């Protein structure tokens, strides 16, 4: 048994202009999950503590919250893995969401990201054409099963730094869900889906890997890489900056063994996009003033062959 002190964010959007905190202590086994500790606190001490939960077995996605500053499922987090020496555990609502009541947030923006995907199968043929199931190989299904483990808990969305600065970014969970349809051999809208996810700022993902903290091992970050690859492979919206940036970085590193920054800027913005280039000019001038302007041309490093060998052995042919 341990005396756990839950340090809880308290807020009621109907009456409070600012949140406050309450510390509620409960005696529970230290291996108990944070969720069950909250449940005990609510049952035994303060009935007004509010949070979402349903399955208590990491499958419904309800109980995502910040635990000591890191988002995760409260029902998958034992107290003894997060409490400090005094038994204190801080619990807060997920970031990147508007708080509603205590640990409960407004989820609508998160669901809207899914709706934009048209998240349902759109096969080319009709049901009536098939008396039985459509045949799909175990391998093709397996790809989808891993993503299907997503419980839509929004942990990844709450952790994503890009969402926090630009809420129009689709976010990791929705991109992973888009992948589920893009890679489904039964679906006929691959191109439209790729275009849609590109419009929803696919390329804003900074590959910071914060979302790899997914409690269900969906690894949305890796699915984002897959979707970007598919975008380039299918040559969808190739005139956007995102894919151009990826390709030019790839090209200069392969050619020179280094990042040829001037070329990357030109390649990303567009060599003949004078207006776009003018926009980045002030940045260039400021860099020049500090003596940090990259050289216009980069000479290949001495052992560039070795770099190219690495590229050749890793490279998924893209263009």
């Amino acid at each position, binding site marked *: 048994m341990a005396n756990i002190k839950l340090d809880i964010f308290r807020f009621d959007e109907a009456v409070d202009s600012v949140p406050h905190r309450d510390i509620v202590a409960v005696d529970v086994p230290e291996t108990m999950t944070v969720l069950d500790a909250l449940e005990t606190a609510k049952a035994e001490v303060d009935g007004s503590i509010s949070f979402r939960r349903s399955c208590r*077995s990491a499958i419904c996605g309800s109980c995502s919250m910040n635990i000591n500053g890191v988002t995760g499922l409260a029902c998958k987090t034992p107290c003894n893995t997060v409490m400090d020496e005094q038994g204190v555990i801080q619990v807060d609502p997920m970031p990147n969401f508007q708080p509603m009541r205590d640990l409960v947030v407004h989820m609508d923006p998160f669901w809207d990201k899914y709706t934009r995907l048209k998240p349902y199968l759109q096969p080319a043929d009709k*049901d009536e054409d098939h008396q039985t199931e459509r045949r799909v190989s175990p391998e093709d299904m397996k790809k989808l*099963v891993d993503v299907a483990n997503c419980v839509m808990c929004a942990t990844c969305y709450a952790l994503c730094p890009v969402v926090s600065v630009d809420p129009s970014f689709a976010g990791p969970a929705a991109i992973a869900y888009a992948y589920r349809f893009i890679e489904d051999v039964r679906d006929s809208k691959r191109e439209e889906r790729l275009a849609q996810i590109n419009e929803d700022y696919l390329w804003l993902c900074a590959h910071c890997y914060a979302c790899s903290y997914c409690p269900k091992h969906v690894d949305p970050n890796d699915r984002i890489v897959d979707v970007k690859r598919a975008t380039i492979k299918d040559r969808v919206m190739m005139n956007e900056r995102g894919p151009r940036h990826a390709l030019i970085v790839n090209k200069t590193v392969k050619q020179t063994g280094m990042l040829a920054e001037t070329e990357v800027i030109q390649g990303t913005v567009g060599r003949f996009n004078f207006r776009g280039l003018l926009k980045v000019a002030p940045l260039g001038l400021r860099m020049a003033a500090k003596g940090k302007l990259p050289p216009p041309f980069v000479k290949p490093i001495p052992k560039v062959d070795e770099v190219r060998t690495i590229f050749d052995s890793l490279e998924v042919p893209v263009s």
Partner: protein
Amino acid sequence: MINHDVVVIGGGLAGMRAAVEAAERGADVAIVSKMHPVRSHSGAAQGGINAALGNREEDTPQNHAFDTAKGSDYLGDQDAIEAMCEDAPRQIIWLEHRGCIFSRLPDGRIAQRPFGGAGAPRTCYSADVTGLVILHTLWEQLERFNVKVYEEYFCTALCVEDGVGTGVVAYNMRNGELELINAKATIFATGGAGRMYAKTTNGYASTADGQAIAFRAGIPMMDMEFVQFHPTSLKENGVLLSEAARGEGAYLLNSAGERFMFKYAPNKGELASRDVVSRAEWTEILEGRGIDGCVLLDLRHLGREKILERLPQIRELALDATGKDAIDSPIPILPGMHYTMGGIETDIWGATRVPGVYAAGEVASPSVHGANRLGGNSLLETIVFGARSAKHACDYIKNVGSVKPSERTLKQEQDRIANWMGKSSGTRAPQLRAAMNKVMSDNVFIFRNEEQLQSAVDQLLEIRKQFDENVYVMDKSKTFNTDLVNTMETDYLIDSAMCVANGALARKESRGAQARTDYPERDDEKWMIHTLAWREQGKNPRLDYSRKVTITKWQPTVRTY
């Protein structure tokens, strides 16, 4: 005031399947759900869903129906069972066509695994996340048809005017307002009632709401004494390790390391039906061959690869709760409350005795499971009867002009809540819930007898009284007041628990999940009848045995595995 043709209460598999069916038929349909649909407990279903596709071995819907009738210990209504098993392959194909991610055989057809009590491998699955993938597929169809979802609306009462269902009253959890939702047809799909017991595989939200709401509106509960205890739940938190584990070949061991199941079920061993396995485990434990009140589920011989490919979630759930890795260590397990075979009485179309009111899924009892449910048949029931009830409802509403808004039900619910909210002292719901849990777990468990059941009935009546007189809600907020919601849920659970205990006491025989040590035999002479429980305000329910079991093909015989 909100108006729709059809309103579905609940966004689990049964509710969403009903809503999609109604939408495909062009009805103006909406879902009222206390959680976002993808949060529903159906998502926790791991093992699979039955249909006689015959993809691995020759199989027919008739074989499936026979296994189900036998599994039900012959209490299931065979017309309903046949309807379900005939529909099953069509419904699986329907789901597959909408993108459901089923595991596949090498030739690309849907894979099937063996499950307890089944004569052929007929359980379709997706690794061990079957419920989740079907839940997602149906939610996708809601998105496709733009079905209106009243999310985080808690249904509190059913409206019946002039003997006809006219919709529901629901509490909007986001702003604390009660709203009248008028509908020509109402379909209850609110799921199970596991939380009447202390140890259950059910999540926090399985609280018998729909059952008690219908009960209070004058609709009888059927066969509530039949509660399924799942043989493999974790001691720590009741979390389920799916039957898929045994389907894939896991062993059950006692303290001597013996595979004891063959003593109880010489042919099927670990794959006997659930009531048989749970009783065997409990007997081993009672006779001193348990380990810390548990027996062991051993997966080690399946090997790392198979465990990781087919049972990854099970491994992780066990690891999280016990710290033991099933790959190299047996997992202590024991039977836990899992499923309510009984529920709102319906016919084979999901229709109740009140026109315009339907029920489908775990909340309902069209009596396909009888005295014991087979694994994989409950997901099937949600899909089949979700679709069937919506089909019937869509036909029914064609002849309904308009409905009379039940202002009096709204007023009644406002008063009920105001009473709890107005008090600042008394008894809180969690205390009464804990008392009820203890009564049920101690006295209405796997083995039952007169003395204990009588004491359960008496104690529950006392808890009912205390609740009605003393309960109050501590949280006074109008925003996401889960204290109020929990109180409401406890209110409903007590009603359902009373039906279970009273039904069990009155049924003087052992059948399926009901094992009476004082009446150890099945009594087909007297008890091939259903238990109907009717509400009596503030008293024990009135029991009525006017509904006989429907037999189409299979006369009761001795049930062995």
